[in-house]
């Protein structure tokens, strides 16, 4: 039995510890967000956050995650109440087929959590491991930029108050 925290909830799963996290998320926990793309950590379709860092779940054995905090795209919001970054993807209509998008959002979320105001080149570099085949990159880029601005906007009054 392996216990890990997924989207804030402690989850116990009974699987071979070698099983990649991706299959536990999609199978045992019935979460759709993380997608199988390559199985070898080359495309980012399966990206989730583990203790705040973007990680490819297809190459992360679940046995290494005891007590770790996993966040998937489901943990950021819902269709009815999307998170800031998810809302930015909706506002920019930043998807075509959408298969890569959950992974894109998780990698971008990890960036914004550490650096709410990344430069253009920081976004490009940070997002480089994730592949998109529809060519939606420009919109994904704009969505990250938009979310960053929304976070800045939200944070600004607090910052002033604290100054």
């Amino acid at each position, binding site marked *: 039995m392996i216990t890990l925290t997924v989207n804030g909830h402690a989850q116990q799963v009974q699987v071979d510890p070698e099983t990649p996290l991706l299959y536990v998320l999609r199978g045992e926990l019935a979460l759709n*967000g993380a*997608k199988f793309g390559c*199985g070898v950590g080359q495309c980012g379709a399966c990206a989730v956050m583990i203790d705040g860092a973007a990680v490819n779940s297809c190459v992360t054995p679940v046995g290494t995650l005891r007590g770790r905090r996993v966040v998937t*795209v489901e943990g950021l919001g819902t269709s009815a109440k999307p998170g800031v970054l998810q809302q930015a993807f909706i506002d920019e209509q930043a*998807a075509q087929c959408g*298969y890569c998008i959950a992974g894109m959002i998780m990698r971008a979320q990890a960036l914004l959590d550490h650096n709410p105001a990344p430069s253009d080149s920081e976004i490009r570099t940070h997002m480089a491991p994730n*592949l998109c*085949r529809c*060519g939606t990159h420009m919109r994904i880029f704009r969505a990250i930029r938009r979310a960053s601005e929304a976070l800045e906007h939200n944070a600004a009054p607090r910052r002033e108050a604290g100054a």
Partner: protein
Amino acid sequence: MSAVRRLTPSRRGFLLGGGALIVSFSLPLAIAEAPAEKKLPGSLERSPKLASWIRIDERGAITVFTGKCELGQGIKTALIQVAAEELAVAPESIHLVTADTALTPNEGYTAGSHSMQDSGTAIRYAAAQARSLLIGAAAAQLGISREHLKAQDGEVVADDGRRLRFGALVKDELLHVAADGRSDLTDAAHYRLIGKPVHRVDIPAKVTGGSAFVHDLRLPGMLHARVVRPPSYHATLSGVDTTPIAKMPGVRAVHREGNYLAVIAEHEYQAVAAMLAVERAATWSDSPTLPEPDKIFDWLASQPSERIPVVNGSGGLTGRTNIFEATYRRAYQMHASIGPSCAVAQFENGRLTVWTHSQGVFPLRAAIAQLVQLPADKVRCIQVDGSGCYGHNGADDAGADAALLAMALPGHPVRVQWMREQEHAWEPYGSAMITTARAALGPDGRIAGWDYSVRSCTHATRAGPAGNLLPAWLLAHPSTPPPPRPLPLPEGGGHRNAAPLYSIPDARVVYEFVSAMPLRVSALRSLGAYMNIFSIESFMDELARAAKADPVDFRLRHLDDPRARAVIKAAAEGFGWPDYPRRQDHGRGFAFARYKNVAAYLALAVEVEVDRKARRVRLERVVAAVDSGEAVNPDGIQNQIEGGILQSASMTLHERVAFDRTRVTSRDWSSYPILRFSEIPDEVRVHVLNQPGAPFLGTGEAAQGPTAAAIANAIADATGTRLRDIPLALP
């Protein structure tokens, strides 16, 4: 690599006059504009019952049916906009059902940028007719003339304030009539939804982890399968001991039928583990059957071919002196979907149901019925969104895999997903191609002659016949693929867009169709248009340079169609073409085409940055203009065009399927690299030139060819080096 001939005046021009006479075909424009017979609009012609498209129940619930599939192009949203506009209801009140052999009209494949033209047009006329019938029924019921009535938010409302709900009007099978295609469409001046950038209905689920894809289906009792493919196309299974594998945790079956191997397990990763074990246990007999990869273009050039005339002038080069020629080549390229193909199937009570991300559920049903030997009416194929396909990828084959395995384990839903290396190695690629262009410049600086040929393997091996399904080749009693046939004009396959849209006297265009197929090939986004437009638009640039003309002016000089001229001017102006500030290691390039010569017009100007030391090119800035006729969802059009530009840039700058004499060696993203975020442009701007009231023109593939040429033209502008082989590689 064999040498590419330089663009220099040809001394062999005199030889060209003696070429064989070619039997006449019409010019593409003549085909496009031939007076249409009295046909119903769009797909109404094929499915002429109104109730096939629109149903309204007594509660007023509206269901709209389309035989087309959502492929990430946003078709669901655009079709809902069209239906809701004509029915005068809110888009939220429309329930849209997409391709399902049990429920929807048969609209063939969702391919060739046809969905708005075929389905959008049909739904629009059907909805307008439904509105008219509802108003007519209300007029009869209220005893007033229809001029005093209008449809509004699910009701018919009279001038005097009386109102009747749609649901109260649909009795007596009001909508069970033949479609007439004659109802008045909503006037563009009164549009509420058409032409508006309505948000896509499928995006919220796709950004929040909703059940959005066939990959996300979870049916009660569902089992997980993985297939084991041979190491190469023609390998045969020498032996495999599956006994220990059948005892692995969760494994329910190890399936073997000839060279066809698969495993079925309770949990997905158990299936993956069993698949890996079978791969280790299996031994295969293999031999080199593929052409020498370094000589693939020599192979292609030497193959017997069928000569198909496309434009049958003489070429107009006889007696000319100022003749130019160039040869262009394209490597095999792949669809390379991010999500490997997937399907779920269930065989129960003698009926087989397949959930698939196929582009054509009706042709797939025919193929699967033949494959599993069931009558077609016992097979149902339901389309569910998948990873973007960009043409004929592994979707249909995965549907066949799921069908075969579901038949082996009756009662259980079986989900199969391919592994990355299976998708890369077994999908049908876009064919390698060679084009040769010759042209003469007249003393007036115009093109005086044009002789063009394109040589390619097929671009059409889709399912329909079971022999086009990959799993069928591997079975103990295999089906073999039917001999490939060229797709007919005016749309064409390898010769799609082979005829230039420019006014050129006496042009000759020939398609040399090669039926041999050493690597599996089929339809890749825009088919031959990508290579033909790359070639024609590169050559136009070379000719403009030779004529010492501005490339934009040179194109306009040869174009009369005002809509073609309008997109060219809009792209040039948006880019700032005339005032382009020249910079070190930067260049600008231009290209134009009308997709298939009958669909959307697109022109674009690009700027590239060239790093000579690293031999790297980055697409830096793009301004495109597109005329898709009536634009239902301009943001959807922009999304498709932006995507097409980036995807084409990836193909043009990076992509080539690698293989050796035995097998495909592009099996992952490091052996088949595609564009990454680190190299995306600074700006991609798309101007939509809307034509309210005009017919819809297919858009989804319009950017593929022009982008490739514009990049090559910009590289030539920056470096003076003309690159004619895709993927473009700096020397």
